[in-house]
């Protein structure tokens, strides 16, 4: 693996003169817009956290109601921020791993424009309450069609780049990106189109297949593609094992898709399907531990670098959050545990650790790494970057841990029917208050991060060494 990463090094970093020059316009456009949405949707996030504490906040305006802002928060973070940032970073790393230019910058720029149009359409329709009523698939049908078109444009561009690569052997990040493109296509079609031909439990089953795999087969593989690329790059250390990364990849490809029905445990869906979902959920430990072991082993002897290497800090904290989330996941699927935590506030604690703690951390690390290189400037402020890390860590841990404890307690109370429901609401008040303040800290992380990126892009600090 040493050999490949060093090849990647040549392709990406300090290339000898006369070597390949990457244009990176597509990556830049996607990145800047994703950071802007991160900031805007971050405000929405704080507002909905506040509504748990002050339920009458802005509640006389229909468009500002909880039921309108929550899908805006979820869709905005998933598609406006995270997926767009992931796309930006893959537009950056795939050409470098392939040793060629992006197949078409024109197509890439058109994709970026279409993607932004989709996100703006999503904001308007969700605020208006044009909601399809399916989680993660709220957007009206015309926008769903536009997403498919944009995804084909994105996938085609990267596949063409890969097919023209100069290095025959593909680094593991390339597989993960290819997997993401292909699986996402089918998962998205299931969750947004196949559901339209079904009703009731059958539809719910397709919906959960999509919801679960939106995380498992979209954000997980593309997040791992980033981690596999940026951990060796940021630490200047070759990946520990190619074989282990293969085990992780192929087991992920096989195992993830079976687990959707674990969202309906104890619910009105066939028991045998629940059991299958549980069995495969436990098997998820295999791809997770394979990847995590590989990352830790790569860092062996390199941990001292964490002290002042901000991207690496985000990456390795992200790996730890990934490990924890993916330990929780299989545990929730066990019937006895599920009977307590399912439908409680534990679940948003879990979901935020996955999407923010693990996958957003990988994307943030990637952004801090990529922005100075593609714009050829020095990062505006290293200490601000460090501050953003600590805001997210403290805010994030405050958020996750209070919701787990609160959610567990809530579930425990629900299982005692002698306790009136409203008492279990009142009991959670302190939890929601702490969550709100943790959310403010997390928002400070977003603020510092987006300001730093913006100031780097617009600023005039040239890079000391040639990019």
């Amino acid at each position, binding site marked *: 693996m040493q050999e490949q990463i060093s090849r990647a090094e040549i392709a990406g970093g300090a290339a000898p003169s006369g070597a390949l020059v990457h244009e990176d316009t597509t990556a830049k456009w996607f990145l800047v817009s994703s950071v802007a949405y991160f900031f805007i949707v971050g405000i929405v996030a704080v507002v909905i956290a506040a509504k748990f504490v002050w339920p009458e906040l802005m509640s006389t305006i229909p468009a500002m109601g909880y039921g309108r802002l*929550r899908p805006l928060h979820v869709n905005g973070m998933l598609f406006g921020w995270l997926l767009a940032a992931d796309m930006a970073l893959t537009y950056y790393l795939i050409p470098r791993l392939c040793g060629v230019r992006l197949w078409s910058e024109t197509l890439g720029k058109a994709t970026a424009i279409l993607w932004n149009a989709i996100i703006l359409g999503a904001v308007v329709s969700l605020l208006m309450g044009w909601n399809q009523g399916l989680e993660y698939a709220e957007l009206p049908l015309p926008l769903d069609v536009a997403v498919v078109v944009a995804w084909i444009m994105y996938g085609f561009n990267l596949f063409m780049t890969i*097919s023209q690569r100069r290095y025959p052997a593909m680094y593991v990040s390339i597989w993960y990106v290819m997997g993401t493109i292909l699986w996402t296509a089918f998962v998205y079609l299931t969750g947004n189109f196949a559901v339209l031909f079904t009703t009731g439990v059958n539809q719910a089953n397709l919906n959960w297949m999509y919801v679960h795999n939106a995380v498992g087969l979209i954000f997980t593989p593309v997040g791992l593609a980033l981690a596999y690329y940026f951990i060796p790059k940021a630490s200047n250390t070759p990946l520990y094992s190619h074989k282990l990364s293969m085990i992780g990849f192929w087991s992920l490809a096989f195992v993830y898709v079976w687990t959707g029905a674990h969202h309906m445990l104890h619910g009105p869906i066939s028991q045998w399907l629940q059991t299958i979902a549980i069995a495969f959920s436990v098997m998820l430990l295999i791809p997770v531990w394979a990847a995590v072991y590989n990352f830790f082993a790569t860092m062996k002897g390199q941990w001292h670098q964490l002290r002042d290497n901000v991207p690496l800090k985000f990456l390795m904290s992200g790996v730890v959050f990934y490990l924890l989330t993916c330990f929780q996941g299989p545990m929730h699927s066990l019937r006895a545990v599920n009977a307590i935590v399912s439908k409680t506030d534990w679940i948003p604690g879990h979901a935020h650790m996955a999407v923010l703690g693990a996958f957003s951390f990988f994307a943030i690390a990637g952004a801090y790494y990529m922005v100075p290189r593609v714009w050829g400037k020095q990062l505006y402020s290293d200490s601000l970057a460090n501050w953003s890390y600590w805001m997210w860590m403290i805010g994030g841990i405050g958020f996750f841990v209070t919701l787990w404890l609160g959610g567990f307690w809530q579930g425990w109370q629900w299982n005692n029917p002698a306790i009136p429901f409203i008492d279990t609401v009142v009991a959670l008040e302190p939890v929601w208050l702490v969550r709100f303040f943790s959310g403010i800290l997390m928002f400070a992380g977003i603020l510092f991060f987006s300001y730093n990126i913006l100031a780097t892009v617009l600023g005039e600090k040239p890079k000391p060494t040639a990019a």
Partner: protein
Amino acid sequence: MLRKADTSATWAAIISLVLFFIGGILTTVVPPLVDTTWAKPFENADPAKGPTGKLTPLNELQLQGRQIYIREGCWYCHTQQTRTLLADTKRSGWKGVDSPVSTPDEFVYDDPHLFGTKRTGPDLSRVGGKYDEQWHRTHFRNPRDLVPGSIMPPYPWLVEDAAEFKAIVAYMQTLGRAKDWRPDNDYEE
């Protein structure tokens, strides 16, 4: 084969899709073929076999109410499933009678389904017939007037628009009524 995928993008793509489709098809296309109760509307006339009753599709007014329920995002805070847990059947129950658990045949006409994932408020799968119109009016105007400590948002615009109010209440009253399980039909005071 997997070795070949190391250097061939086409192979890698094909194998990733094949592995994905095995689980994909077995867990999405096959289950409704195997378990036919998913698509058969609930109907039972024999009290020995459990609660009697019949599932009927919603009428226009009720469907309109359901659309409001979706538009306002009620389903982000309320589930609609009485699970196979004792506590669920007690909490969905009424006047000391435990509610029957939810079964797939009660949801055959649901499109989109509204099972939900989060219970910030109580489960609503058996709320039909629990409260009268006046209760809902007061509750939508400001939930805290009826239930101090509630964090449900107020929905003044639903009360002010007579047609919308009629529709949402009509929909609420259908929830969980396919199975005839309530001891009588008057509302809680």
